[in-house]
């Protein structure tokens, strides 16, 4: 799974402290998805929810890459990245529940996440628009001579949008400080991505735009961190990269997806490749993390997420009057 066209460092320089931070974020992210799915199943959450279970290692790896002021242009299955960027569980939950506390003030919802404070621009619900939009964010940084990197994440299916191809080319020809991350979780909605591409790795497409492409095991936060550190360092020098993180979506495209398109044998083996318990084991073994401490983090994560969901469940949604405001600047700005 760790094959790559362009070689990335195989070994990450990860300290025990890094490992602890990464594991803790993976735990929080997983607990968040579990409890959001339960809230949806219990009818406490209207709308929809797209689980990022299986994507946790990406958020963990980004923890080791983001500098203050960097920009994130996420997609709809990006809660690990949003937490890695510094958004709190409460901020993320507020947007999923569309309360008035959310970045959108209740005008967005799960697929429209933004945070001015944390430079998170996930406004779009149209897959692939964000890839091209991220090049503009990066262009602005570059033109002002700022060192910030823009991280843009998207799914495997979105790598078939025209915007992917146009945007990678623009990033390459204009030397933009951007890192593209394709979260290849094997499924594009209710279909298999292998039926929709004719290259082994989506990362192979990077060669067509003159930028490095890395296909790496997206369940391994340390390998991902090593690759992303390379990509971030290049981006800070104006060289964009495409990183394909190969992972497996553990749940449906959305909650309630009966997943009849999935092979039951594949589903039965999901736990063998689950990135969260496997990194939990590794972090304890390799870095000597205290198992009791890890259990305490797990308990704390459960409490934090439960409190955020309980809070969001009681918070007001947008008022009828505010539902049609903030369309233009001069009419209303809040």
């Amino acid at each position, binding site marked *: 799974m760790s094959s790559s066209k362009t070689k990335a460092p195989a070994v990450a320089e990860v300290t025990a402290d890094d490992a602890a931070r990464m594991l803790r974020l993976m735990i929080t992210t997983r607990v968040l998805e579990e409890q959001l799915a339960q809230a949806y199943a219990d009818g406490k959450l209207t709308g929809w929810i797209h689980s990022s279970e299986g994507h946790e290692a990406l958020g963990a790896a980004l923890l080791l890459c983001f500098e203050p002021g960097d*920009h994130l242009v996420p997609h709809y299955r990006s809660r690990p990245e949003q937490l890695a960027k510094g958004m709190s569980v409460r901020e993320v939950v507020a947007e999923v529940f569309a309360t008035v506390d959310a970045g959108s003030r209740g005008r967005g919802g799960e697929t429209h996440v933004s945070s001015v404070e944390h430079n998170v621009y996930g406004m779009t619900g149209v897959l692939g*628009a964000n890839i091209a939009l991220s090049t*503009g964010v990066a262009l602005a940084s570059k033109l002002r001579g700022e060192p910030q990197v823009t991280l843009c994440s998207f799914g495997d299916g979105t790598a078939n949008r025209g915007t992917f191809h146009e945007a990678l080319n623009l990033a390459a020809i204009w030397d933009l400080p951007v890192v593209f991350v394709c979260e290849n979780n094997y499924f594009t909605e209710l279909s298999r991505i292998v039926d929709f591409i004719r290259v082994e790795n989506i990362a192979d497409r990077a060669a067509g735009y003159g930028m490095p492409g890395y296909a790496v095991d997206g369940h391994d936060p340390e390998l991902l961190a090593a690759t992303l550190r390379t990509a971030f360092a290049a981006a800070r020098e104006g060289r964009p990269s495409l990183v394909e993180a190969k992972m497996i979506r553990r749940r449906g495209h959305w909650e309630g997806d009966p997943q009849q398109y999935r092979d039951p044998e594949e589903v039965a083996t999901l736990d063998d490749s689950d990135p969260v318990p496997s990194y939990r084991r590794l972090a304890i073994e390799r870095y000597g993390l205290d198992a009791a401490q890890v259990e305490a983090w797990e308990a704390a994560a459960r409490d934090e997420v439960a409190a955020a969901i309980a809070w969001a469940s009681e918070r007001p949604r947008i008022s009828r009057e505010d539902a049609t405001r903030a369309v233009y600047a001069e009419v209303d700005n809040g």
Partner: protein
Amino acid sequence: MAERERTELNTRWAITQAHQEEMERDPSVILIGQDVGAGEGVFGLTRGLFDQFGPTRVLDAPISEEALANMAVGAAINGMRPILEIMFMDFIALTVDALANQAAKTRYLSGGSIGVPMVVRTLAGAGFRIGAHHGQSLESWFTHIPGLKVVHPSNPADTKGLLKAAIRDPDPVLFIETKALLGEKGPPPPPDEVLPLGKASVARAGTDLTIVATGRMVGESLRAAERLAEGGISAEVIDPRTLLPLDTETIVTSVARTGCAVVVHEAPRPSGIGAEIAAVINERCLYELDAPVIRLAGAFSPIPPGPAEDWLFPDAAQIAATARDLVEG
């Protein structure tokens, strides 16, 4: 440039000057588009800008309209004021997601916290006789989208003053130029004039009927008004200039006084901006109207190449005849 602006200004230079002045005033203004740099634009609208501002302010872009429009959104989100040139309005089809879903809705979806101060300039209308994919007027695709502004000037002074306003505006503006009018000359505006968006102009005052016209049809309507005057009919010609938001007050005030209205545009009639204008007049001036509101519009047809193009669009003679029938009927 200074030599040329003394006594008259053509639309081409009005566009260039607006860019130049705003780029001098505000370092966050950048121009992106195909051939806008060293080539100075296929319509010659960006002359001198590349030499003056260099490749970091004037970006020659590949043929990637959808990504470029989204890129402009992203640059605007991150503090720039991009101007994107889409060479022919027909190609605006490639940017609709970026404009209608991203640019228009970002402020709303960020709870009012993230604005998108960008301008997409494009060239609409027939007149070059180059067929179905290089002469459409598609403004009404966008006057339906909350979050956008749509500007469509018809003379050099308005073009300059409104483009400067569009560049300074905090929200995304689709700025529609008329390629058949690029060579039109007119009096230059006062230095540094910035016209307000959302304000119509009374291009000619009159008392017997109101002609509301956009783009190239403003000039045709003014010529029609001259013919009508020879026959003793006094026509008022209103140019909305901004189509979204539409200055309904100026239109309603005029029609309430004249009692007759003809609405003229180059785009096809069904669901065109004329339908909106006629509806506003009907809603607000019903008891002042002496006759039904008449729409004159481009044919509901793709545009053929060559001289056949001319058959599809209203002209001064047709506007005058329609107006005469309406007033005398």
